[in-house]
């Protein structure tokens, strides 16, 4: 087990290293630079050059990369070129919106997808099961922006029971208002991610129902449902956890769109703005943190898999 964890850790670090080079190089290919953005549409080439010089953008790329990664290793993510504020401060501030939003979305998505997926599988031959999976099929195909607009229209404007946009300026010092602000955005992401999850769970459970061990358990006197619950679901859990790992990335992408639509000051919206401003040192650190997060979730999923999969567990006794 220790060797397993160590190999995974090495892979995680290697993955981050490669990602950092890719992030750094991809951003340098983007046309336009921050000096032009600062100088705007009424400036001379001389002024752009002066700003570029003042910002230290004329250094060779390898030096820029080493500077960045060297500081990152010392947990210093650098400063924004435009505002001079430390990237870490901005990330922490914006995470107050995005992390709760992502977590609530994920939890809601599981609460929707898991029970309904099992229900749809168990009842797959009945009308109720068909209706549930039909709805899931439709919802999973809905564009996220459209789903958000619909929820805003119904709950935010027509009924007026939930905030349609924005996050309180005082943040979590106003916990009630802050939480309510996240309900509609989280529902939007969770609805769609939940529908995707539902379809996964449904087919995994359906597959389990057809497995020999469930049939055998049923033959030994358990009802179909008992057999499924005791022997089928632990196996279903394995594939669901893998899917959840992928869904974390889906939620991260979802927040980028949803934060614009609901006017939430989160990481996704900040990232879009920073790319528009070509604030490269800031973007690359933000992307590195997000990539690290997704890779870390993958690492945890691997570990959990190892712990709950009897087949993999046995290998560790070798």
């Amino acid at each position, binding site marked *: 087990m220790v060797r397993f964890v160590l190999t995974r850790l090495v892979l995680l670090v290697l993955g981050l290293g490669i990602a950092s080079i890719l992030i750094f190089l991809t951003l340098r290919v983007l046309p336009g630079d921050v000096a032009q953005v600062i100088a705007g549409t009424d400036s001379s080439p001389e002024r752009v050059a002066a700003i570029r010089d003042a910002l230290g953008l004329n250094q060779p790329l390898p030096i820029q990369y080493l500077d960045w990664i060297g500081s990152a290793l010392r947990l210093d993510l650098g400063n924004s070129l435009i505002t001079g504020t430390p990237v870490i401060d901005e990330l922490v*501030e914006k995470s107050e919106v995005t992390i709760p939003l992502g977590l609530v979305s994920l939890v809601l998505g599981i609460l929707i997808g898991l029970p309904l997926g099992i229900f749809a599988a168990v009842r797959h031959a009945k009308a109720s099961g068909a209706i549930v999976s039909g709805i899931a099929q439709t919802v999973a195909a809905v564009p996220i922006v459209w789903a958000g607009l619909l929820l805003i229209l119904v709950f935010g404007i027509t009924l007026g029971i939930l905030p349609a946009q924005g996050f309180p300026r005082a943040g979590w010092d106003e916990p009630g208002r802050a939480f309510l602000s996240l309900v509609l955005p989280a529902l939007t992401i969770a609805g769609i991610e939940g529908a995707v999850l539902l379809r996964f769970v449904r087919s995994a459970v359906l597959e389990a129902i057809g497995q020999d061990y469930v049939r055998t358990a049923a033959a030994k006197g358990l009802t179909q449902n008992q057999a499924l619950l005791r022997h089928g679901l632990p196996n279903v859990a394995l594939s669901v956890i893998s899917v959840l790992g992928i869904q974390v990335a889906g939620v991260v992408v979802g927040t980028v769109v949803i934060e614009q*639509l609901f006017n939430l000051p989160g990481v996704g919206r900040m990232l879009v703005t920073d790319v528009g401003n070509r604030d490269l040192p800031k973007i690359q650190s933000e992307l590195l943190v997000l990539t690290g997060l997704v890779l870390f979730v993958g690492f945890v999923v691997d570990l959990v898999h190892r712990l709950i999969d009897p087949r993999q567990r046995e290998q560790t006794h070798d």
Partner: protein
Amino acid sequence: MKKHYTQQPRRRRIGIAIGSSVGIVALVGTLAGCAPAVAEAPVASDASVAIGLRLEPTNLDIAHTSGIALDQVLIDNVYEGLLTRTDDGNVDDLIAESHTVSDDGLVYTFAIRDGIVFHDGSELTVDDVVWSLSQVKDDETFSAHPEFASVESIAADGSNVVITLTQPNSSLLWSIAGRAGIVFDEQATNDLETTSNGTGPFSLVEWKQGDSITLERNDDYWGDTALVGEVVFQYFTDSSAEVNAVLAGDLDIATGIDANLVTQLEGNDDYDIVAGKTTDKFTLAFNNAKAPFTDIRVRQAIRQAIDNDALIAAVNGAGYNISGPIPDGDPGYEDLTAVDAYDPEAAKALLAEAGVSDLKLDLTIASFYGTTLTDVLTTQLADVGITLTVKPVEFATWLEDVYTNHDYDLSIVDHAESRDFQNWANPDYYFGYDNADVQALFAESQTALTPEDAAAKLQEAAKLVASDAPAEWLLVTKSNTAVAKGVTGFPADFTSARLNITDLAVK
């Protein structure tokens, strides 16, 4: 400069009422209906007013960072200049108590007002003024630096500040009423990029990046203190999010409402929709230095192929046609819509005469302008046999490809700045438009001794530019602002460039 903002829309409404009234009874009724509103003076309160805006500044450094998003929020409210701009296009004294210009137009004298303090409590001195102006003159990273090209010296003389020029400059007062004239505290050590230390009626409390800017009333203001306690500028990158905020009642004022979404707010009892003027010129620029645009017939043909009225209809009527480089409200404006007016048959004939057939052109446009204009243009140009390929790019990419490298055929950008005619007199600008007569006329307008002479020269130059067809001016937008009932004193015009909230009040 007090009050005129509130008066203007009201006057307009009365005017319409008079025109359509049949009898004197109706007239009296209309006037009586307005009377209480006019008589009722705005009351000071500690209210907090939430204002929705569309474009957030990249940072708060108004000395170095371009973009009118900064001027919009900070000038007149947080920072003050020697002079200020009035909404009828004039300048007014502000930190300067008075100013004089010598007869030869070379010496400008500003008497500096006494008893002004910065938000950090330190006193504004004549030295601060000289230091602030000198930085603009000497430091080329200042965005206003080019506007002081003709400044020879800036010096203190008792409580006066004297600017001496090498040649007359008819734009100098306008510049000084803008960024070039802002007075900073020489002793201050605050971080200009995220904080501010001005002298205005509001001080900056917080900038929550990607979200909002909060201003608070400056109770020690040298003039009349503001009528509200706090103003929160809330930024919306998504146009429907702003409209949703209005519909949900989250905002007191929403500026820059998307013209195609404004119908959602019609019939809403809680808000008035105020139409305003802008200097936002949506300019379809031709790359004049490059074939086929070196042939004036091709340029004229494209202009004649474009039906501006159809474009304006496509944006829900939120614009007007100028067909020239100067918008209504800027000096030198003249209705040039007759020049190369819509005539697709004439356009086809011109293209044939120029020997151009099956023309294929790329149109580079910043993606945040949406697709309404480009969809209509694609159809209109197809009618005369021109195939348009629209290339939506990020603004930063547009800056690199079009603005810096001049690598484009056609480009659309909103030239939002007022009085920016100099771009047509600059052969190095991305238009690639080079006409010595225009440049000479512009130079003469700059050195003119009276505003009237300057405007006349500009008008002449603008006419010349229009007849050269270096671009098609698609439209000048009209802004839509939603103002909650009971909120008064909010400017109606030019809100994307300046948002003076000194008179803002809540009932």
